[in-house]
C-alpha cells in the first residue's frame, strides 16, 4: 500500500474518533469531551492535508503529476477535507462545539466510503485528455467548498429539528446544550449563502471548462442539470427567506431537501448516462 492511502485510511479512523467525542459531548452534556473532539478533528485535518500533499507528490514521481482531484476516491477525500476545514473555521468563529456532532460524521462517512468501498479505486491514475485542463482545480475546489457549506447547513437543519422535538427542553440534557433557535437559523442562512456562492462559482467554472472541452458551455448533461436543480432549490430557499421572511423549521427542512439534491448531484448522477462519468 502506498503511504498516502495509508495515511488517508488512518484519517478515516481519526474522524470517526472525533465524531464519537462530539456525540458523547452532546449526549452527556459535558464540555469535558469537547476539547479532545476538536483536537482530534484538527489532527485529522493536518494528517489529511499531509496525505493529499504526499499523493500529489507521488503522482509527480510517477510522471503523471496532477492535483489529487481527479477521480471518485480523490473527490471523496477532498469533500471530507473541505467539510472539516469549514467546520473548524465555523467552530472557531462561533466558539461553540455543538455543531460537531452533526457535521464531523459526514466527513467520516465520506472518508469511509473512499477507503472501504470496493467500487472506489484508490490508485493514482493519470489524467485522460478531457481532464487535462487548468479548470479542473478551480472547478473541483469551488464545487466541493459549496458541497461542504451545504453539508454544514444540513447539520444545522438536523440540529434545529432535533431541538424542536424536545417539548420540555430542560428534561433532556443534550437538547439544552444546543444553541438557541435564532442562532441556528442565522447560521443556517450564512452557510447556505456561502454554499450558494460557491455552487454558482462551480457552475461557472464548469461552464468555462465545458466551453473549451465539449464545444458548449452548457449541454444539459445530467450533472449540469442536477447542479442547476440544486441551485434552484437554494435560490427558492433564499427568496422565501428574503421576501416572505421564512425562518426556522421551514428553513431547516429546506436545507435537508437541498442537501439531498447535493448528494444526488454528487453520487446519483453517476447512474445516469452523461459526460461526467469520471466523477
Amino acid at each position, binding site marked *: 500500500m502506498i503511504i498516502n492511502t495509508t495515511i488517508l485510511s488512518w484519517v478515516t479512523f481519526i474522524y470517526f474518533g472525533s465524531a464519537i467525542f462530539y456525540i458523547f459531548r452532546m449526549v452527556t452534556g459535558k464540555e469535558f469531551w469537547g476539547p479532545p473532539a476538536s483536537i482530534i478533528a484538527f489532527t485529522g485535518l493536518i494528517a489529511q492535508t499531509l496525505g493529499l500533499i504526499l499523493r500529489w507528490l507521488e503522482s509527480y514521481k510517477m510522471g*503523471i503529476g496532477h492535483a489529487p482531484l481527479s477521480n471518485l476516491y480523490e473527490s471523496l477525500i477532498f469533500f471530507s477535507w473541505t467539510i472539516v476545514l469549514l467546520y473548524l473555521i465555523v467552530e472557531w468563529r462561533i466558539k461553540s462545539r455543538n455543531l460537531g456532532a452533526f457535521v464531523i460524521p459526514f466527513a467520516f462517512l465520506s472518508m469511509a466510503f473512499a477507503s472501504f468501498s470496493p467500487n472506489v479505486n484508490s490508485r493514482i*491514475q*493519470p489524467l*485522460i*485528455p*478531457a481532464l*487535462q*485542463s487548468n479548470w479542473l482545480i478551480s472547478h473541483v475546489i469551488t464545487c466541493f467548498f459549496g458541497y461542504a457549506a451545504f453539508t454544514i447547513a444540513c447539520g444545522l437543519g438536523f440540529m434545529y429539528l432535533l431541538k424542536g422535538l424536545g417539548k420540555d427542553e430542560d428534561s433532556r440534557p443534550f437538547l439544552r446544550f444546543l444553541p438557541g433557535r435564532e442562532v441556528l437559523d*442565522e447560521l443556517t442562512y450564512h452557510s447556505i*449563502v456561502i454554499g*450558494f*456562492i460557491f455552487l*454558482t*462559482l462551480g457552475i*461557472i467554472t464548469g*461552464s468555462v471548462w465545458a*466551453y*473549451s*472541452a*465539449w*464545444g*458548449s*458551455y*452548457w449541454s*444539459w448533461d*445530467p450533472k449540469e*442539470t*442536477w447542479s*442547476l*436543480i440544486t441551485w*434552484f*432549490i437554494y*435560490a*427558492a430557499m433564499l*427568496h*422565501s427567506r*428574503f*421576501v*416572505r421572511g421564512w425562518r426556522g423549521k421551514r428553513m431547516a427542512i429546506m436545507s435537508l431537501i437541498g442537501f439531498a439534491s447535493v448528494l444526488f448531484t454528487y453520487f446519483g*448522477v453517476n447512474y*445516469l*448516462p*452523461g459526460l461526467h462519468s469520471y466523477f
Partner: protein
Amino acid sequence: MKKTFLSFLSSLRLTIALLIIIAVASILGTVIPQQYGGGEAFRHLSPGLVKAFRSLQLFDMYHSVWFIILMGLLSLNLITCSLNRFPTSWKLFKKKSSLDRSKPFENLSPDSVLVIEGNPHEIIGRVENLLKKRYKRVRKKDTANSALFYGEKGTYSHFGVYVIHLSILIIIAGAIIGSLLGFNAFVNISEGECTNTVYLGRQKGIKKLDFTVRCDKFSIAFYKNGMPKEYRSNLSFLKDNNVIFQGPLLVNHPITVNGIRFYQASYGTIPGDQVCLTIKKGNDEEIIRKVRLKDSFYLKEKNAKLTILRIEENLMSMGPAVLINIQSPEGTMRFWAFKHIEKIKDRIPGLFKKVPKFNPGLFKPYYFTLNRIEKKYYTGLQLSRDPGVSIVAIGSFFIIIGFFITFFSSHKRLWVRVDEQEGKSRISVAATSNKDPVGLKREIEHLLRHFSYMRG
C-alpha cells in the same frame, strides 16, 4: 383584472412555482435519454408511448416549446418583479433621514449608551471625526449643549438583488442569441481527406463552410497503463487552395477559424487503402509486402506485374479480401486473396473448383494470403459558433458581483447623540440595517469601544 394578472406575474409564488416546475421537468430530462428524435434507447417502450413522448418533445426536452415557454415565464417574472420593487429600493437609496428625531433613541438598550468623562464640546468634535471616517453623508445638528449626528453606508446594497436578476436575464439573453445565431455541427474526416461539408446537430441538415478542413494526421498517445493520454489531429484549413491555418487540435484546446471553433470530439478507424500481403513461393520462406491500392510490384522470376485492384473489408461475408491482378507473359489473370482462406476452404469443400477466382494459388508457384488491411484513423470533429458566449460570460461575472453586494453588504443607518449628563458626556448610539443584524451589532460595539477611548 389587469392589475391582478400583473401582480400574479410578479409574485414570488410564481417564481417558486416556476423553479419547482423547471426543476421537476429537468429531472425528467435527465432520466429520459435526450437524443435528436429519440433514437434507439426507447425501443422497448410501446409505440404509443414513444409517440406521446415525441409529441411532447420529451426526447429533446430542453429545446422543446413548453420548456422554452417556462423559461420565458421565469424571465418575465424576473423582469416584472424587479420593476415592481425597484422604486421602493430607489426611495430607500435616496431617502434623507430627518435629523431632528428623537425616535431612534426611544427604547434604546442601556448597552448602547455610554457616559464618559469630558466636556461634550470636545467629545462632539472627536465623534464627528470618527464618524466622517467610517460613514458617508454624515450630517450634524447642533443644539445648545448637544449634537446629533446621522450617517449611513452601504446604500448601494439595495441594488444587489437587481444586479443578480439583471445578470440572469443577460445570461438568458446570451443563451437565446447563441441558439438563434449560432450552430453546432460535427464531421468525421479520415486521415488525408478534406471536406467543407459538416452535419448540423440540433437543426439537422448539412452546412457548407466557406473553407476546407483537411485532416493531415490523427494520433493517440497512451500512458504506460494503457489509458489514453492524448488525442491529436493535425489539421489544415484551406481557402482557395491556400492554407489559412494549420495546427494540432487537442482535447481542451479548441482551434478557432473564421469564428468557428473546432473541438476534438471523437475518433475511429476505417479500412485504409494499404494492405499487407503474404507471398509464398513453392517451399520458400514467406515474404510480407505492403502494397497500396492501385499500386503494383514485380514478381521478378516470372516477369509478372502484380496490382491491387480492390480492397474489401468483408467480401460476401467471408471476411477481408483483396482483388489481385497479375500481368505476365502468360497472360492476365485476376483472383481474390482472402485473409481467412483456410477456414473458408474447410467450410465450403471444393471451393476452388466451383470458383477458381477464389484460389489464391492460381498463379503458380505463388500463393497469396491477405495478411491485414492497414487501418486508417478518422477524426471526429465538433464545430460550433456561439455569438452569445461573451454575453453569458458578462452575465456570469456580474452575478458574482451581485452576490457580494446582496449577501455581504447592508445599508446601515446610524444616529449618534452627544449630550451632557451631570457634567459628563453621554453618547447614545442607535442604528438600523436592512439586513445582517449580527454585523450591525458588531458595528455598534466597535463604535462604542472607540467612543470609550475618547474620555477627556
